[in-house]
């Protein structure tokens, strides 16, 4: 492995401020790929993207190209998109359905379970090639929660359950339980955008309740004009909250605000027969009390560290490309067991704000570009994350809570980031992977002339 200078993260991340180099130093991005995206759990995709056997979609875990596929036996698999012969990608299509993946270079063919099925002119390996050792390499660990598929490049580590923890799982539940069948569909298309700035700006911005009234003033003006009420959950005196759920998971919590303002909102939004039908189905599945809880939350607004953002109807995944280039993929979801009318309204609502031509998100992206430019002025390198530090407090459920506009969310992200980035797990993921699968031995065994 390439050696890099050791970075002292404790000197860059303080409780109330962070250092600009965290967004500008290419060595730090390389370190993030090795630690954040390699040791712990990374969100990869949702089972709703691949509902049928053979369905696949290309994904990434850090820098690793991954095929997320449902094989012939209906098992979801995460396979590295890399031919075991010469390293070419074996799957080129972004998404589709396939029984096999065939490397075009020399014709090696793999089943959609990853097994190596065919090697042309196999006798050229002297009869010693062991196909069973040369399948597509699976991501060492994969676990699911409510259809959300997480992968880890490290074969050892905490379970997904421990990584998520109860408070974050509750937020995922609120997102999914808006469906009266308790399942979401992820088949409604994809929004993609990129921006010339660091990927962590997207994490922070998505969980920043201080910016909407300013960055999105023009959007809020438009809403006010069209429906007659101005959303004010991000006002300085609102009853909205921000929350640190632990392990880097954070959220903007509108539940208290929604409870107070439910009546006001109901009087503005029309209740259609479709709404009534939906409410009836929800109560049939969840009961009156839980239905009220789910509808009051209206989904969630949460970051599952390090790369899963759930906002409104969407699953959002930021992907670093370079220290100053980020790609973001948005998967709007629809709800199983819900009328086409309501699902269509979900999509139209999402579209108004999000996507590269949305009326909100591009203004955020503009701020990221401005920040990346601004922090080049680093003779004073510090960036503040101190808002609300004096008024955050421990809630009954153990989470740290503060006002909606407070930066308890950013502190939650950065304190966990510091923990992961400054830890020194001795064994690298590469040596783990080698010891587990022993590909060198497989290649030696299959080489025509062993013993190089």
């Amino acid at each position, binding site marked *: 492995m390439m050696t890099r200078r050791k970075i002292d993260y404790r000197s860059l991340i303080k409780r109330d401020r962070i250092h600009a180099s965290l967004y500008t130093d290419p060595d730090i991005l390389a370190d993030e790929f090795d630690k954040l995206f390699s040791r712990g759990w990374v969100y990869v995709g949702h089972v709703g993207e691949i509902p049928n056997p053979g369905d696949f979609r290309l994904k990434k875990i850090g820098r690793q190209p991954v095929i997320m596929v449902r094989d012939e036996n209906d098992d979801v698999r995460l396979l590295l998109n890399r031919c075991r012969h010469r390293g070419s990608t074996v799957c080129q299509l972004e998404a589709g359905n396939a029984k096999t993946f065939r490397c075009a270079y020399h014709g090696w063919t793999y089943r959609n379970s990853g097994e190596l099925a065919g090697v042309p002119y196999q006798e050229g390996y002297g009869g010693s090639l062991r196909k069973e050792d040369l399948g597509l390499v699976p991501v060492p660990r994969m676990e699911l929660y409510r259809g959300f598929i997480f992968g880890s490049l490290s074969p050892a580590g905490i379970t997904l359950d421990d990584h998520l923890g109860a408070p974050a799982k509750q937020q995922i539940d609120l997102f999914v339980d808006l469906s009266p069948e308790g399942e979401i569909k992820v088949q409604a298309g994809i929004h993609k955008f990129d921006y010339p700035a660091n990927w962590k700006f997207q994490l922070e911005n998505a969980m920043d309740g201080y910016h909407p009234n300013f960055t999105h003033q023009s959007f809020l003006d*438009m809403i006010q004009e069209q429906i007659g009420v101005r959303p004010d959950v991000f006002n300085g005196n609102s009853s909205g909250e921000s929350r640190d759920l632990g392990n880097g998971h954070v959220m903007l919590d509108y539940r208290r605000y929604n409870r107070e303002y439910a009546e006001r909102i109901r009087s503005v939004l029309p209740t259609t027969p479709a709404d009534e039908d939906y409410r009836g189905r929800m109560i049939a599945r969840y009961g009156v009390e839980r239905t009220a809880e789910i509808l009051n939350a209206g989904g969630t607004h949460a970051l599952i560290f390090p790369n899963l953002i759930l906002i409104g109807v969407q699953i959002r995944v930021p992907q670093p490309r370079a220290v100053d280039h980020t*790609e973001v993929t948005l998967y*709007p979801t629809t709800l199983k067991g819900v009328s086409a009318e309501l699902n269509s309204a979900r*999509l139209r609502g999402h579209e108004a704000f999000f*996507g590269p031509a949305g*009326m909100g998100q*591009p203004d955020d992206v503009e*701020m990221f570009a401005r920040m990346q430019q601004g922090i080049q002025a680093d003779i004073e390198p510090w960036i503040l994350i101190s808002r609300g530090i004096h008024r955050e407090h421990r809630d009954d459920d153990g989470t740290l809570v503060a006002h909606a506009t407070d930066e308890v969310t950013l502190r939650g992200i950065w304190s966990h980031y510091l923990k992961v980035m400054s830890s020194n797990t001795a064994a690298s993921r590469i040596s783990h992977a080698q010891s587990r699968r022993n590909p060198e031995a497989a290649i030696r065994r299959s080489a025509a002339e062993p013993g190089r």
Partner: protein
Amino acid sequence: MPLLPDFRRIENFLYREARLMDENAYEEWLSLWASENICYWVPTSENETDPGQQISIIYDDRKRLEGRIKRLASGYAFAQDPKSRMRRVISSIEINEAADGTFTTWSNFALGEFRRGKQDIFIGRTMHQLRPEGDSFKILLKKVLLINSDGYIDNLTFLL
């Protein structure tokens, strides 16, 4: 204005629309649209046929388009501060007249866009459905197929 044959009048209309978009003449561009039952559609894929159940990049009815224009003109749409500087070429125009007197046109465009020191090129194909009105037309439907509609795009907040 001398009476031009339909083809020339439609061509002129498309060129004028392109210029208004290039010059960020938001209100004037909006005035080219019919006053109701319109659709301004930029799908995420050429194969997208069911916008009811599929997300689009833009799928505006009249009300949302008015909101879009008002926002762009407000001075607080930061993704257009500074504004995009643009010129586009419209070409390969094909025109079909329908039985109800409306025209459906297909045309290609090549758009150069410059903003914050970076020049981007957008290429695509546009369908217009136009209704004759007076000596000009009103846009009923506009569908824009970008060749990179399923790629990562940083900013599409100008008019397409």
